[in-house]
């Protein structure tokens, strides 16, 4: 019994217990429910901070529970997992505040917040998973706990979107499970190891490993919304704004991208991945997704749908960086895991504010909205500029490193993909900004001077995440910035 064993478990428990405690609460006990929620979220942030401090000071945290003979449920804290876990913990904290404000008067809140907490438990579990089995367990848990959130409204569209979501993700999960079993058959019970676990088993069976790689990517690619597998994501935006925010920034889509990262770095390893020649294929797939996602986003009028296709595109930045298999590209991919989360959650918060306060859902209705909601639109503008990849917002740092990584690998064409994507992003974000700030409102809406433009529960998280997205780019070179952390991780990885 020691802290290095218990802390990872406690991180999970902080939201698991919260979730289980919330389920039985009657609907009218909203104060108690909110208190529980905020306590859980705060405790998780503190615990992750403690673990981060410990990791920096050389403490290894690992929880190993015997799940099956020979096969343990392993929660291990490595720098990469810490990056994802901190992102989940911090963004969960802000999303909880936002959700409390957003869903104030809606029914079934105990069900909602219960699954909300379980969903984050699963996301953190995914980030801390120390082997593929543990990863699969939490990955599936994530699917099942997000489904009730997607269909929360219970409308026919929500149910239909939920069905699509389930079909996609369960099929993906099954493929992943198959792949995990296959890996077990090849290598036995193995933990994630930096540099890969398959190196010793690679002799003489390249095709088998290639098939395994494809199966893993196919399974994980569903959640990472790689292009032929992305269909569920734009439909799932029917969910309430805080769910979309969490879905698009951390919980679901990142689990897929993070999984692909673990497969390439900790199961196959950089060397084997490039020997098998699969990374080239993944690079092309990611580049295709980047361009197609942006093109689709360009055609959407519904704001959240446009944001959803933008997620499809932006997620593949992460995969692109990883698939390049070079240090600079990896830094770009890793750091975008955090940066995309900060920027996209801001965009969804802002979209939620618009629909909650002004009932504006479509881009074509956004003329002059910035006069009524300047803070919201300022946050939106900042995040959108970051998505385009303009300095000083965070997205620029990702793009810069991806570009350098492409040149480092001698793949100049990737730089053109990035430039094209920047222009497409500008193509679907700048018109929104122009409408909001420079067009006259269609309906005359009086600006509010005497009070905040919306509930502070909605404004505070929006501003906070926008500020973090700005700071992550503005002070990218400072210690403790996501970039600095990503650099350290990659230095370790490629040593």
């Amino acid at each position, binding site marked *: 019994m020691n802290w290095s064993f218990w802390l990872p478990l406690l991180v999970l428990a902080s939201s698991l217990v919260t979730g289980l405690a919330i*389920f039985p609460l009657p609907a009218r006990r909203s104060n108690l429910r909110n208190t529980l929620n905020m306590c859980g979220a705060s405790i998780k942030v503190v615990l992750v901070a403690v673990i981060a401090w410990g990791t920096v000071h050389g403490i290894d945290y690992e929880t190993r529970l015997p*799940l*099956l*003979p*020979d*096969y343990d449920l392993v929660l291990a804290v490595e720098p990469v997992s810490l990056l994802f876990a901190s992102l989940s913990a911090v963004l969960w904290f802000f999303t909880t505040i936002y959700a409390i404000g957003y869903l104030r008067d809606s029914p079934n809140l105990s*069900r909602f917040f*219960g*699954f909300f907490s379980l969903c984050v438990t699963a996301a953190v579990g995914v980030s801390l998973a120390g082997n593929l*089995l543990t990863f*699969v*367990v939490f990955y*599936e*848990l994530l699917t*099942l*706990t997000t*489904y*009730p959130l997607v*269909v929360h409204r*219970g409308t026919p569209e929500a*149910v239909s979107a*939920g*069905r699509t979501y*389930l079909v996609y993700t369960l099929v993906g999960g099954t493929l992943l*499970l198959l792949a995990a*079993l296959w890996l*077990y*058959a090849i290598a*036995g019970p193995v933990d994630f190891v930096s540099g890969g676990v398959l190196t010793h088993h690679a002799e003489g069976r390249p095709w088998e490993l290639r098939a395994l790689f494809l199966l893993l990517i196919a399974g994980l690619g569903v959640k990472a919304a790689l292009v032929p597998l992305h269909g569920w994501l734009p439909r799932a935006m029917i969910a309430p704004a805080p769910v979309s925010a969490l879905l698009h920034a951390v919980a679901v889509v990142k689990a897929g991208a993070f999984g692909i990262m673990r497969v390439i770095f900790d199961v196959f390893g950089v060397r084997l991945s490039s020997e098998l020649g699969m990374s080239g294929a993944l690079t092309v797939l990611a580049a295709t997704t980047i361009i197609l996602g942006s093109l689709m986003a360009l*055609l959407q009028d519904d704001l959240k749908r446009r944001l959803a296709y933008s997620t499809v595109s932006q997620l593949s930045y992460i995969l692109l960086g990883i698939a390049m298999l070079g240090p600079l590209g990896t830094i770009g991919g890793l750091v975008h895991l955090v940066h995309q989360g900060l920027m996209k959650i801001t965009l969804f918060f802002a979209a939620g504010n618009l629909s909650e306060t002004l009932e504006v859902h479509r881009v074509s209705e956004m003329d002059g909205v910035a006069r009524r909601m300047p803070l919201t639109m300022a946050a939106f503008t900042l995040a959108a500029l970051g998505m385009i*990849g*303009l*300095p*000083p917002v965070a997205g620029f*740092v990702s*793009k*810069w490193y991806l*570009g*350098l990584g492409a*040149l*480092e690998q001698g793949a*100049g064409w990737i*730089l*053109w993909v*990035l*430039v*094209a994507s*920047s*222009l497409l992003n*500008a193509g679907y974000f*700048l018109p929104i900004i*122009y409408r909001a700030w*420079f067009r006259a409102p269609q309906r005359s809406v009086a600006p509010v001077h005497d009070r905040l433009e919306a509930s502070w529960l909605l404004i505070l998280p929006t501003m906070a995440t926008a500020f973090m997205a700005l700071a992550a*780019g*503005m*002070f*990218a*070179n*400072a210690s403790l910035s996501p*970039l600095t952390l990503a650099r350290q991780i990659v230095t370790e990885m490629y040593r």
Partner: protein
Amino acid sequence: MTGLVAAVLAVPLVLATLLAVPGRLRAAATALAPWAALPAVALAVPAVLSIHVSDAPQTRLDLPWLLLGSTFGIDDTGSVFLLLTGLLWLLAGLYARAYLATDAARTRYFAYHLFTLAGNLGVVLAHDVVSFYLSFLVMTLAAFGLIIHRGTTAARRASLVYLVMAVAAEGLLLFGFVVTAHEIGGVGLPALLPAGQGHDVGGNASLMLLLGFGVKAGLPLLHMWLPLAHPVAPTPASAVLSGAMIKAGLLGWLRFLPLGEGAEPLLGTSMVIAGLVAAFYGAVLGVTQRQPKALLAYSSVSQMGFLTVAVGAALALPEVWPAARTAVLVFAFHHAMTKGALFLGVGIVQRQERWRQRLLPLVGMAFAGAVLTGLPFTGGALAKSLLKNALHPLAEQVSWASPLPFLVTLAAAGTGLLMLRLLALLLRRAEEEEEEPAPSRATAGMWLPWLGSLAAVAAGPVLLASLLGVPLYGFDDLAVSGGSASGEGIAIEGVAKAWELLWPALLAAAAYPVLLRGAVPELPAGDVLVPLERVTVRLAAATAARTSRVAGALERLRTSWNAQRRRLGSGQWLPSLERNLMRWDSAGVLLLLLGALLTAVLMGGRDGS
């Protein structure tokens, strides 16, 4: 000095932030905003005075925590650009205070003014690629607010054209910047690195940088936004757009292109040709304009053509660079001040309702026009002579380039024609001027900055040239002294030289009446953009139609697939499953079942192995 570098950038930014705070702070910030460029001038003047005097380390401000590690500082090239930028912004800011005295949206104007200024100063001071990129971007995006300020249909069209072109340019620049950072293995600016240390970033990236900055600098076919934006922007904004911001594109070339390396003969040659085309094209198109400020915009395209020729020559032939550098610096300063004075003057003339009141400002305009044309004993003559002298090595060594000095002189005739036309336009009654009904007559607040700019036009280039070591009162042979052996030369000299300066102006004066009688056709501002816009609109409509057809086909496919599925009966049980799954308790049971299934499968898998 480091503190001053920080203040140059911080003052506009802090003032812009304070403008957002209602109440007394906003009032104070609005009062101070016109003066925001003062620290820049204070930093630039001593820096320009000490050009070439000592090899003392340049002032540097290192901010390792900012962006990817930022460095700002001042070097010889930067000091001249800082002076022209700071001076023009200061004059334009003071002018704007009076010009917009009755404008309800002046706070907003000054907010964009301050951000554009901060970006422009950042471009000059940036010593690393990322800070340069950020500054250039801030300047570009904030200038959108200056162009759209009036909010008229024309202003909206102009600002959209500007934004589209600027964003496309940003894409090209991103490519160039990343390649530069990769090639030099860091984020330093190529031009500031020791010679031979990775100046050459490769033809592809050089081309992208050339075009990306070319949008700002008004390369032909990338110039379309200029004649649209200048007439609609408030006059002080036109002055800084055409005087200072256009030079940011030039500075980009100087900072990033491998000048003096001889690495890009093809690109350099193309640039020389593009510059010549711009010099004539701008003059010809400018004459067809009705709006004085559109004419001045075309004149800027033409003048930037001269600078493009010089930079292109230095790109093509390394020997050209030392002399071309001096010429470019003097010419850039001269053009910034003169064009600024011309724009500010247009604003004053247009606010004088009576014909007689216009005479006095027209005298000033005539002076500025004469300087721009390059009449003897003016700064314009000095700048053009330096430019021609710098081109001599190219003209002597490369056969196709031999008519270059003559063509540059001939283009000056075009400038003369433009200036005559400008004066004629300004003499007319105000019936078709784009200016809103003038809220008030030009006040001292507008006159004083304008007179200040005229003083800078008269004295500035000569002073600058002497600081740069150009012998001013010699004859041909005296020019060969020390480092200026390549012909950094003679400006104000003998009669023969004076004739060379005078004949273009005389040609213009002779051609002008002929031209008037021939009834100049009126071309719309933005020339080739107009048909281009029409094609774009048609293309967009066609694409939209096609897209909706494809979407329709997809939708039909989906419907038929759904029908098929229903017919197979698979649609029957799914909805009820959905309803059950939606109840959270059944989802929980499913969760447990899945866990059990997992366990079972894993056990089985283990037995099998």
